[in-house]
């Protein structure tokens, strides 16, 4: 669980700990730029309230925030601060309410999710907390990639450490970490909003963890990339690629990180072409499992049993389930058509409203797709972890796609948006 304290200009770097448990720190703001230009006057008020809070005058801060919000009910920063104050005053339910509202209104901001997670965790609702944190990560694709990369790095380091513990020979160091590069970052969704500046405390914590003294030469290579990829405050794509090349230059064989040239891989991908390098600002929460871990390492080895939550089904839910099943089969049919290079059936899976991600016209896009698909000697498309959510006549399908054509072998996460048209589900957008 991340110790994430966010920062108003005047509180820079001040970590704000709300709870005694190690998982608990609440973000207390997120930079003035987040909501498309907050007025200077409001910034002053916010600073004043934040200062009161910092001085431990939470009740006074609450009063000021409340009177301010009467005048400016939609000020997101002040509302956020109000949530923090409520948490500080141990009014957890009130705080939860505020942060839930913020996550609904500003689903792309990670901070309210984080704080919500901290509050849920404090209430002992760890499962809910973890779900909310996953949503926080989902607010920015770069977070998710960095998150996954960090996981891969840990996997690689774990593998190296097991090899040392168990004296495995090199050939058996077979847990190959897969390293994902952020090759393209789509602009954030709300107009004019700059991505939140990474919080220095968080970044420091993260890179410290990752760069913990590496036990072996292998791990050293991994951690050098770790510093470059997930933890940086403001890493450009080219920097990330450079880092990847450095890994390649070092002992790739034993570490098992394969870094092919991103360019060679990307253009053949069906949808998106790589965008020119953009500044990527990555913010990586430090993962800290909240689950209890028993003292003996043997206990650590055992995977935590998964808890199941039983959901009662209503008729409505059943109807939704049926729609989900329809969407799933539509997605599978689409993949099957692609794999069997049945271009007509493949293109028929797309709606007339489909907007190609490369900005070209639908006709032009279809032509390109046809050429690419027919031209291949063989294609294999496999989907994993297909997850579908349906909202009326609209649906979203998320999955991991393995695509093999000749020597090209790529895996990516993909999101299809579909809509029901005359009883059939058609793809309206395709994004990675």
């Amino acid at each position, binding site marked *: 669980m991340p110790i994430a304290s966010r920062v108003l200009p005047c509180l820079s770097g001040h970590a704000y700990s709300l709870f005694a448990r190690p998982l608990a720190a609440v973000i207390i703001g997120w930079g003035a730029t987040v909501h498309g230009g907050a007025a200077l006057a409001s910034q002053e008020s916010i600073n004043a309230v934040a200062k009161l809070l910092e001085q431990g005058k939470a009740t006074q801060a609450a009063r000021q925030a409340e009177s301010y919000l009467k005048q400016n009910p939609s000020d997101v920063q002040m509302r956020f601060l109000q949530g923090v104050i409520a948490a500080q005053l141990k009014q957890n339910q009130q705080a939860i309410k505020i942060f839930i509202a913020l996550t609904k209104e500003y689903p792309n901001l990670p901070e309210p999710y984080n704080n919500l997670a901290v509050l849920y965790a404090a209430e002992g609702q760890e499962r809910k907390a973890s779900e909310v944190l996953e949503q926080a990560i989902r607010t920015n694709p770069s977070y998710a990639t960095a998150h996954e990369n960090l996981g891969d790095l840990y996997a690689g380091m774990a593998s190296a450490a097991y090899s040392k*513990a*168990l004296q495995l020979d090199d050939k058996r160091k077979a847990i190959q970490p897969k390293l994902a590069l952020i090759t393209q970052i*789509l602009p954030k969704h709300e107009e004019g909003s700059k991505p939140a500046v990474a919080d220095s405390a968080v970044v420091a914590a993260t890179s410290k963890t990752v760069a913990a003294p590496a036990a072996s030469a292998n791990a050293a290579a991994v951690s050098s990339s770790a510093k470059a990829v997930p933890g940086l405050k403001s890493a450009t794509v080219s920097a990330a690629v450079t880092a990847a090349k450095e890994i390649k230059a070092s002992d790739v064989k034993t570490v098992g990180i394969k870094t092919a040239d991103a360019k060679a891989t990307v253009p053949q991908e069906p949808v998106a072409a790589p965008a020119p390098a953009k500044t990527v600002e990555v913010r990586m929460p430090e993962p800290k499992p909240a689950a209890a871990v028993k003292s003996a*390492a043997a206990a650590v080895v055992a*995977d935590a049993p998964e808890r199941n939550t039983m959901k009662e089904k209503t008729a409505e839910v059943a109807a939704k389930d049926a729609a989900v099943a329809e969407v799933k089969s539509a997605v599978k049919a689409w993949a099957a058509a692609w794999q069997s290079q049945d271009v007509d059936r493949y293109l028929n899976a797309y709606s007339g409203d489909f907007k190609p991600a490369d900005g070209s016209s639908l006709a032009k896009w279809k032509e390109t797709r046809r050429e690419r698909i027919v031209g291949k000697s063989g294609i294999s498309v496999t989907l994993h972890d297909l997850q579908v959510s349906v909202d009326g006549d609209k649906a979203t399908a998320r999955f991991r796609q393995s695509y093999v054509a000749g020597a090209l072998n790529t895996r990516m996460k993909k999101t299809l948006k579909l809509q029901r048209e005359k009883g059939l589900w058609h793809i309206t957008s395709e994004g*990675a």
Partner: protein
Amino acid sequence: MKPLAAGKAEERLLQAIEMVGQQNLDGALKAVAALTSEVPNFRAAHLVYADLLRFKTGRMVSAPAPVGGMLVKHAPQPATSVLLSPEVQDQLQGLQDELRRRVQAAASLPVEGSIPAELLMLDASVRQAMAIDASKSRLYLFTNEGGSLRMTGNFYVSVGKLGMGKTEAGDQRTPQGVYFIGRQIPGAKLPEFYGKGALTMNYPNDWDRLAGRSGSGIWLHGTPPDQYARLPEASDGCVVLSNPDLTFLMRSIDLQTPVLVREQLQWLAPQDVAGRRKAEQSFLKVLDDWRMAWSRKDQRKLADLYAADFMKPEGSTSPVERLNAYFIGAADIALKDLSVYSWADAKGELRVVNLKASSKAFAKDLSLRQYWRKSGTHWKLFSEDVMGS
């Protein structure tokens, strides 16, 4: 890099494991990462490190699908399970066992002032004593402070692959009994396998010989360079310590230091020590009878004290004839530096006695080691060695 002091590496490992217990995973990870980099041959520490890393990974592999952006993934090699071969599986279990024993040993240190009953009557001249509990993979070091033992160290040890109770050469077991350190052999004179050196033990002792146990070369020794510690049951019968621990013992213990080796030690609580010592004193009466018999040259009494099957070290002379050479004309024999070790196993109950006999008639004291066996209600001397002569 300078090696960590004796016991330090384990202490740090246990601290890291304790942090896991306190849910301070990041602290634990950091601590054990530092430890593995400082002590890269500490395999059990690597296992803890690997587990912690894997735990962090496990939380994260289910990272959610991104809403935008594109990831290029490079197809991982087919995931092969690395832990399945039997040897690796054994190694893994062995390391887990090692960790468990280390943790348990630290958690179940005997109450201060407790001693193994076998070491009840040590003369102040015996400066240290060691006791090995194989079930805990632990060697306890005691310092004798004016006749009472205080535990001043405890160390992880490995024993024979097939456990305890050596009976014959090559059985890959570690003997049980009361032994004494013989020589110190520096590591430089030994193959790398023995690490920083060895302390020899007098297995088989006279009791082992009487019981028909065979084999030799049971040492306490160090570890090869690629291993900080060996698995709990790993040797051919020797007792193996980490090099820093062994180095510490080589520097601090005397020759002829007693080493009690048992599958499981029986600890005598501090409040029971005095009472039991008093009870044990009845044996001192036997020794006094023996002294008197020699002083008076009471041949009948001597014949009664020495067992009929007395082991004759040099074969030719009877024990009485042998000691007669020393004791002739000595009517004022006094005993000093008297230490009595008790031992019992399936073959019988015995007392191992170290003593010095002195007399105005002697140029210097006579050091003796005796093995007494209980025969019915009587104690019979079945072996007697003149030490350091």
